[in-house]
Structure formats: C-alpha cells, structure tokens
C-alpha cells in the first residue's frame, strides 16, 4: 500500500518534471545562452513572489474557493511597507510585520464574508481586488516609494550560496505548505471540504473556521510575496502585480490542482511556477515578442489542463471495477 502511494507520487511529479525537462531541452537547443548558471539564478530570483502566491492559492483552490485579490493585496501590503519605511522611518522588520498583518486582514475579510454569508469567493475576492488596489493607491497617493538598499538584500543572492533570502523563504513556504496539506488534520479537512462540504458537516466538523483560515493564509502569502517583489524592484509600487492572480491560478492549474476543489498539491503548483518561469525566460532569450509570449503561455496552460484531464480519466478507468 505504501509502495503504491509512493509510486503514485513519483508518477504525479514525473509528468510535470518531464514537461519541465522538455522545455529546458528545447530552449537549450535553440539558444546558446539558456543552459547556463546565470539563467538558473535569474529564474530563481524572479519566482519567489509567484511561488508564494501559488502556495496560498493552492489551499484556496483545494477548499473549493478562488482568490482573485492576491495581486492587489500584494500591492497593498507592499505599499504599506514602503510608506512606513520611507515616510515614517519604520525599521524593516516592523514594516514587514505591518504588511503581513494587512495582508492577513484582507484574506480574513474575504474568507469571513464568503463563509458567513455564503457568497461565492469569486465575487467577494473580486470586490477585494478593487478595494485593496484602491487602498494601495490611497496609502501611497499613487506615488511609488523608493526604498533602496535596506530592502534590496532580501532579493539578492547570499554570498557563496547564490540564492536570495526571498527564494529561500519561498522554498520553505512550499515545503511547509506541502507538509500542512498532506500531513496535518488541517490539510485533510481542507481536501475534504473541497470534495464535499456537506459530508464534512454531517461528519461533525465545522468547516467555516478552516475555510476562513485558508483565505487568511493566502493573505499572509500575498504580504510575503509583496516583500519579495519590493526587494527585487527596490520600490513599493501601488500598481504592482496587476493580473498576477491569474498567473498564480495558472501555476496551480498547470500543476493539476482542480478548480472544483478537493484536489491539489503545493509541490505540483511549484512545478507550475517553474514551467511558467522557464517559458518566460526562454522565450525572452529567443527574442520572441511579448505578444507571441502571451499566446504560447496561454497554449501551455490549456494543454496542461487537457493532459491532466486525460490523466485523471485514465486513472478512473483503471480503478473503477463495477
């Protein structure tokens, strides 16, 4: 039993890994500069924000919700961080803490309203998308804040390690997220809620606190992603991360997370992020125009979902007896 579980896990990641390797191979053949350490480092520095968003989004999708506000909440917590540091002279760590609190509050609000009043999270977070973006502009007076070196170190590779603190935080979030999803009662309940909330309720479990917590967690991930992005750009920009919620959802979906809830894996979502990042970087190196890049990215998303659907149909056929 244990072996078959392990085998299934390997199989799960083998598909995504093969896609990733294939992409890398294609770009390496087409471009002389692709298969180099510099490319790897550049990708590693690009992905922490999207990775963090994807971790939070995976949980939201698993409980059967969706969070459209992550890009805006990222911008808001980043804006708060910038204003507190530049205008009020707060130290970095306190400002980070404030950003996290703001992000968490946004998630808590969305989750609470959605659960308490039974409104689809699609609608509530669509509202939050506008609200948080507006707040970000209000807080900054629509001006970017240049923070500079006091925050840049978070996005820069640590000497001798070649990896930035932001990247390490993202990796820790992926590992921790996967652990929580697969190894804890909290994660088990999340999957159960996404599969059939009525069965969960009739099993004597109150699902509301869990769902709200998941949205709050997504808010915290937005704040961390905001920090990662701010450190990379050295500035807090109220117009940052517009449309990034869709990239986060795309990463999860490429990884095989179901938009219907009940199925998902944080590691697979991370593979989704890597696939998107490799695609972006590779296409950029080939000198492909932005327009073509968008078309190709779109095709990859649809093909990934088609492959996943085919795979789960095959899985059903082999297990269904009578």
């Amino acid at each position, binding site marked *: 039993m244990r072996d078959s579980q392990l085998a299934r896990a390997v199989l799960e990641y083998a598909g995504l890994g093969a896609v990733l390797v294939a992409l890398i191979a294609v770009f390496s053949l087409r471009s002389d500069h692709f298969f180099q350490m510099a490319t790897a480092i550049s990708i590693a520095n690009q992905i922490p924000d999207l990775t963090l968003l994807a971790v939070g989004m995976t949980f939201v999708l698993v409980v059967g919700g969706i969070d459209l506000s992550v890009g805006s909440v990222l911008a808001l917590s980043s804006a708060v961080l910038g204003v507190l540091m530049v205008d009020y002279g707060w130290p970095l760590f306190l400002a980070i803490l404030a950003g996290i609190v703001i992000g968490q509050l946004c998630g808590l609000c969305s989750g609470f309203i959605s659960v308490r009043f039974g409104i689809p999270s699609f609608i509530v977070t669509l509202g939050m998308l506008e609200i948080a973006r507006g707040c970000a502009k209000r807080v900054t007076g629509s001006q970017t804040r240049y923070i500079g070196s006091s925050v840049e170190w978070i996005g820069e590779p640590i000497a001798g390690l070649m990896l930035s603190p932001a990247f390490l935080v993202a990796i820790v979030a992926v590992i921790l997220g996967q652990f929580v999803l697969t190894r*804890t009662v909290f994660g088990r309940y999340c*999957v159960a809620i996404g599969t059939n909330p009525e069965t969960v309720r009739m099993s004597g479990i109150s699902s509301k606190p869990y769902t709200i917590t998941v949205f709050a967690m997504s808010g915290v991930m937005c704040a961390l992603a905001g920090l990662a992005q701010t450190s990379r750009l050295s500035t807090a920009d109220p117009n940052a991360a517009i449309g990034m919620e869709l990239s986060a959802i795309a990463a999860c979906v490429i990884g095989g997370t179901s938009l219907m809830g009940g199925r998902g894996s944080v590691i697979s979502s991370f593979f989704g992020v890597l696939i998107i990042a490799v695609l972006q970087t590779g296409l950029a190196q080939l000198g492909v125009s932005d327009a073509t890049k968008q078309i190709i990215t779109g095709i990859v998303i649809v093909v990934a979902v088609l492959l996943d659907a085919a795979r789960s149909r095959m899985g059903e*056929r082999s*297990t269904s007896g009578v």
Partner: protein
Amino acid sequence: MSLDAQPLFAATGLTKRYAVTVLDSVDFDLRQGEIHALIGANGAGKTTLSKIIAGLTPKSSGTMKFDGQAYCPKTKKSAEAVGIQIVQQELNLVASLSVAENLMLSRMPHRFGVINRSQLHQQARVALDRFGLKDIQTDTVTRSLGVGQRQMVEIAAALDRQCRILILDEPTAALSANETQALFNWLGRLRTQGVGMIYISHRLDEVSQMADRITVLRDGKKVATHDAADLTTDAMVDLMSSEASLTREFNTKKTRKSRQENQAALKVDALSRGRFVRDVSFTLKKGERLGVAGVVGSGRTELLRCLFGADIADSGSVQLAGSDVTTPPRHPYEAVARRMAMVTEDRKESGLLLSQPVRVNATLASMREKLSAAGIILFGKERRLAAEQCEAMETRYTSIEQSVGTLSGGNQQKVVIAKWLMRDADVFLFDEPTRGIDVAARIRIYRLFDALTDAGKSLIIVSSDLEELYEVCDRIAVMSNGQMVTSYERNEWSEDKIMQAAFSEYVKKEAT
C-alpha cells in the same frame, strides 16, 4: 402476457471487462409485455448489464439483437431513439430546475427557441397526473422535493416518453408503500401494452409479486433464468448468495432478545421544526433499538436531522444521558460532541467523499480526536484503524487507498458506518441504512445493530421497509404528518396498526 416466439430483445455472450471482468458471457432475453427481474448481490453485474443495454456503457464483447435487428447503442440517446429507457438508481434530475422542466427536459415545447411555459406546465401536469402524482406541483424546484418524490418524478419522466423496453434499477428503494403500489399499477398497464421491462431489485417479495421471469446473476455470471412462479424467495436467496444458509438462519430468528435497560439514553421533549417536526416527544432507552415508521414526507428524516443538528429545531429539548445540556444541537459538531452519530439517507450527497480513498472516508470523523498528535496525522495508526474497522464490517475492496466511489453501494454504506464506529457514540441515528444494498450487506448491518446494542448503545432506525423494522427493532414509533403519533412494542405491533397510525394525521387533515 404475450409469449412471442421471437423475443423483443436478446443478448448472447455479453461481456464487460474493466481491469477485471464484471460481466462474463451472459445470455439474456426479454419478451414483449414481460417483466423480467434481474437479481443478485451487489457487484453481481445487474447494473452493468442494464447499462450496456441502455447505451450507457459499451460492451467488451457479445452480440445484442433488438426486434430481430443487430443492436449496439453508442450512447443513451441512441438507445432512447429506438425506444429503450432506463431509470437509474442514482437520481438524475437537475436539482435547480422545476419539476416540469425536468420532465420535459429533452423535448421542451418551444417556439423559435423560446419556451412555451403554459404548454410546458400543462404537459408536465398530464404526465404527473397519469402517474397519480397529483400533489406534486409542476413549478416546484426539484431540490425541495424529498428523495421519494424525486424518484417518482424521475420514473414518471421515463414513462412519459414512448418506450418499448423500460429498465428500472431499484425503483422502489426510496418509495413508500403507497408509491410503490402506484408504480406497480403502472407497470401492469405497460405490460398489457407490450412494453418489455427489466426490473432490478433487492426486494425479493416485490420481485416475486411483479416479475414474469427471473434471471439470477452472481459474480458477473448468469446462474439461472426461471419463471417467477417456480421460484420461492428462499430459492432466490440460495441462487444469489453464497451466504444463503446464513440468511435463512437469520430470517427464522423471529423473536429477538431485547437488550434494553431501564435507563434513558436520550430524552426528546416537544421538539419542533416548521411543519415537518411538530411537538415530538419520546425517550430512548439505553440499548434500545427504536424504529421510526411513516410514509415518505411524514417527517422521519427531518426528525433525525433535528436531533443531529443538521437542521436547527425551532423549539423543544434534546438531552443525552450524562449531560446537562437540553438545547437541541445547532450543528452536527455539537451533536457529535454529545456522542451522537448519524448515517444519512443519501450516502453520496452527505455520507462520503466519493473521490477520496476508503481510508480518508473511514477516518474523517476521528482525525482530530484519535488519529493525530499536535495536528499532525499519524499515518500508520490511521491506515491500521481504517483497515481494521472496514474489515470488521466485512467491506470488500482491493485496497484502502481505492477511491470509495468505485465501491458498490453496500460496501460504500459499510464505509460510512465504519466512520462512525471509529468515532464511537452512545446514540446512533440510521436513516434508511439498507437502501439499495444487497442481502449479504443488509444482514451484516443487522448483525451490527445487535453488536451495538450489546455494547449498550442506543439506535434510532428510520426505514421505509416495515419488514426491516420488524426484524431489527424493539419498538416502532410511527410518524404521521410531522407528529410522532404512537409507538408499539414488539409484542403489540402489526402492519394494520402501523399503517393506520401512519395515515392518522393525514386523514384528520382532510376531514377538517
């Protein structure tokens, strides 16, 4: 009944293979104006056979002839086009549409694509009336109907289309005695019109009452086809089940020793919710098995749901032994904390996580309390207890990692029960615990009732099957129109008394 030389439908060597062979070269034929029953334990292949005939599943090999012509439907639609209709075990109505829309779904009366509503409701009304469903409104949203009524609407929808072969898979599982009789009257009329019917049921008394011929399947193979007149129900059980001897032993054990003690396990006083549960009071003794009888829609399910906190009672009190709390629970969470458990009427909707493994389903209610440390799952213990509990219920599966949706109905129900056994409770609520499951699983569940009461647990069992209540209960309470009108002890009940009580409140209503 006409007995044409050439059958209406004939199949030879019909086989269906998935990973395993679930239907193994079965020969089957159906005559015009015949009711041909298919019986067998769950997993015997009845449903697979009927699905192949109805075009829902392609066959792996074998040939089929319909009306003398080679027949091989690609889809349900192509089967319907030649006049083969199926009413499946699962409810296939769109819950958010009205009854009329569901009835007319594939042939909405319209003009340039705009639905003609008055004609829609008129045609639906005709279809319902013809089936005696006068008290179902055509504009009711299907979701708000009870399971029994939904099943009737679904059968009416199939009967309303022109058909030459009608396949019914457990049509009476959710029906009350009256509704069943109405259905049988209809089937009788269809028989005289020359419609061939394939009738799948676990209710052997119905089978011997209705069927002309009976085909018995076991493990995907045909055991025999007999004229119904030649088979007693005992003989049917013998053919179907390797546990036949066990069955007979069980059936003969008519007098049951009661384990109840003179100590209350649950006190319910003046519990009310809307018009479905009205001023219900009773006391459940420790070790008692209380059956709840009544027609569909009499408030039996609603009573259990109120006791369990799935619906919130308007007023009244619910008190368990050893607890000072008297308020009715406001969430199943509270009921479980007070040591209650409930096996719901519809296991697919509210009992199981169909796409998840057996293991996850069996342990769902016990994760926090028994199978984790500091919020982290103890996988070894989880696997061990899940396997132990499911095996104690004699659940048949290939692995506890198999998704529970792939199990047969009886085995699914065992997993639901295993979930609550693992959690443990003092008062168990069972709503239609043996609906749509085979004889062997049914007997396993009856034995479980014995084991539970031996251990001092108390049971409330809602069932539309009076025979079942006679078999397992110490006392039968009767619900009528939302009220618990009376209850009978084992030595005083009779079908006549219970039926009279079940209809008492409805008769009064009409009189005033």
